[in-house]
């Protein structure tokens, strides 16, 4: 038999995994997953991001994919959309960079400047 507290825990836990079916207001992380992105290693990046989100129990973040952005030379590309803020585009991302992006940008609002498209293409 479940107690009322246990019911509340089930509610919280399950909601975290299924609330992406509701209207989204939080952060969107978009990964370029066209042939160029996949060839450059976008999938391990995507998995690393998902793992990190799960590890920290982040509920208001969704992970989406997109096709080719046109900058194939800089793939894997990850874009982070935070509500009310400019889009930030990270290029040549690998799993360890991805983990830093989640920890600093998504969780603490600190853009990882050195991985952004502005820095990389200078």
């Amino acid at each position, binding site marked *: 038999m*479940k*107690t009322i507290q246990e019911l509340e825990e089930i509610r919280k836990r*399950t909601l975290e995994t299924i609330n992406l079916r509701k209207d989204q207001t939080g952060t969107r992380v978009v990964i370029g997953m066209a042939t160029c992105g996949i060839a450059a290693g976008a999938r391990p990046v995507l998995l690393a991001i998902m793992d990190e989100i*799960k590890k920290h129990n982040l509920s208001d973040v969704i992970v989406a994919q997109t*096709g080719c952005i046109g900058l194939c030379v800089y793939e894997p590309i990850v874009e982070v959309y935070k509500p009310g803020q400019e889009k930030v585009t990270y290029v040549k991302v690998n799993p360890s960079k991805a983990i830093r992006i989640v920890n600093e940008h998504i969780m603490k609002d600190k853009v990882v400047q050195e991985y952004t498209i502005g820095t990389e293409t200078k």
Partner: protein
Amino acid sequence: MEMYRSHIMICRGTGCSSSNSEQIAKNFEEQIKIHGLDKEIIVERTGCFGLCALGPIVIIYPEAAFYSQVKPEDVEEIVKEHLVKGRVVKRLLYAETVVEDRIKSINEVNFYKKQKRIALRNCGVINPEDIDEYIAFDGYKALTKCLTELKPEEVIDIIKKSGLQGRGGAGFPTGVKWGFAAAAKGDVKYVLCNADEGDPGAFMDRSVLEGDPHAVLEAMTIAGYAVGGTQGYVYVRAEYPIAVKRLGIAINQAKEYGLLGKNILGTGFDFDIEIRLGAGAFVCGEETALIASMEGERGMPRPRPPFPANKGLFGKPTLLNNVETYANICNIINKGPEWFSSMGTEKSKGTKIFALGGKINNTGLVEIEMGTTMREIVEEIGGGCPNGKKFKAAQTGGPSGGCVPAEHFDVPIDYENLKAIGSMMGSGGLIVIDEDNCMVDIARFFLDFTVDESCGKCTPCREGTKRMYEILEKIIDGKGEEGDIERLESLAKNIQASSLCALGQTAPNPVLSTLRYFRDEYEAHIKEKRCPAGVCQALLQYKINPDICTGCTICARNCPVDAISGKRKEPHVIDQSKCTKCGICMEKCPFKAIARG
């Protein structure tokens, strides 16, 4: 639970299942495995999304991409493009959601925009076979609140204040009914759910049970607490196998979690629910017949009073509500009676689910606020008649209801207004009739149903409906005579006044309401031996226009009974004594020289 970046929601309601949605779900699972995505993407089987005309439906989150009429062979493309590469397959999207440069969200399209999904809130959103998902969307919160914070009489008070009326058809105030059952004295009290949905074309109860079974179980448990009942039964038709299965799963899960059974949530309250299967007799939707059937007797009604609230199942006080009524309860408890009564019209509160069928583009299930007009339902949500035909009427309330003619399409729909124009809310079947339908034929269709379903216990219903049916047959066969309309009317009044139960009392409604608004069609059949809509075979004649006919002989060669004769390159003629009015000649004529009339 694992974290998934994408959820694939596949409708496994009866509609989409019959067009192979299980195979689609299996293909998705297989393809996702092939592409190594099974750790990141989950396939969920859900209840009905409502837009049954475009099934099978698949919705993929987080994009909320709405794929319609998906075929099992489309799955590979969706997985390769959408899930692997993030490119939505526009070709397969519901066309309404695609605008030039972006995809509209579901709530922006006409079909959903005007809807207010309260009883259907979880249908298509959760996996109905997973109690955790129901709990996540505030499931069993209302029960917790009732058991820990509210006294039984306070619960009843909330339901009374909300203004909720029985959604099964009659519209009796639910809170008042609960009050009667609570006041009744008895050592045992029963709480029943009427899921014996029988109106032709109505399937909202089925969809709620298939898509959100826990909502009904939770509400029944609350009802049990409010009226002092300890045992609940859901009486559901055996013809609803998916609903029965999911209900069974839900009951077991609720028991496992201690949400049914002894000492619920440690509060000391006991309540249990069992399923009873009905054999699909329409009359068993009537409460006393339903109870008789559950007791193992033949499903026949008995006179009231005593009402079931005092003397129901096994002679004990019994509360009986419809599925859709129960589906509203938890929301009312959670959000308060004021929230519920702020929706709707002055006298009819909340929302109502309608099953759209007949001559309409978006066949399916819609939930609208009371007070929405028929025009909004049929034209905006329903997308109008196919092939640009004109509306003639909408039939509501099934065989107990009547028709709303096009001239009343701007009347706000609620219990009172529908009654005033000679129809009724009923369980919510809504059949759209266009210019190609004959109203006499429609009336006969519904009467045929009630003649068939009459249990035979009382004479007015058993004999009266049969006699009415015979008169209609006669009219349709071209043998109608002066006085038939009056005979129909007098029979109808007698049957209404003297039948034992609602089945008989309402059986003449389809005839009376078509007579009220389409008397001219009846008169054309009787006096002119003509069917204005061109439906009644016996009153039709196929004729070849000699000015257009080129003598190509195609009609003569295609006629199955050799009723057409004529020389090559000369106009042909149809021998009316041989013609069976099958219409093949008209279909085959390349010059449109054959007319029906």
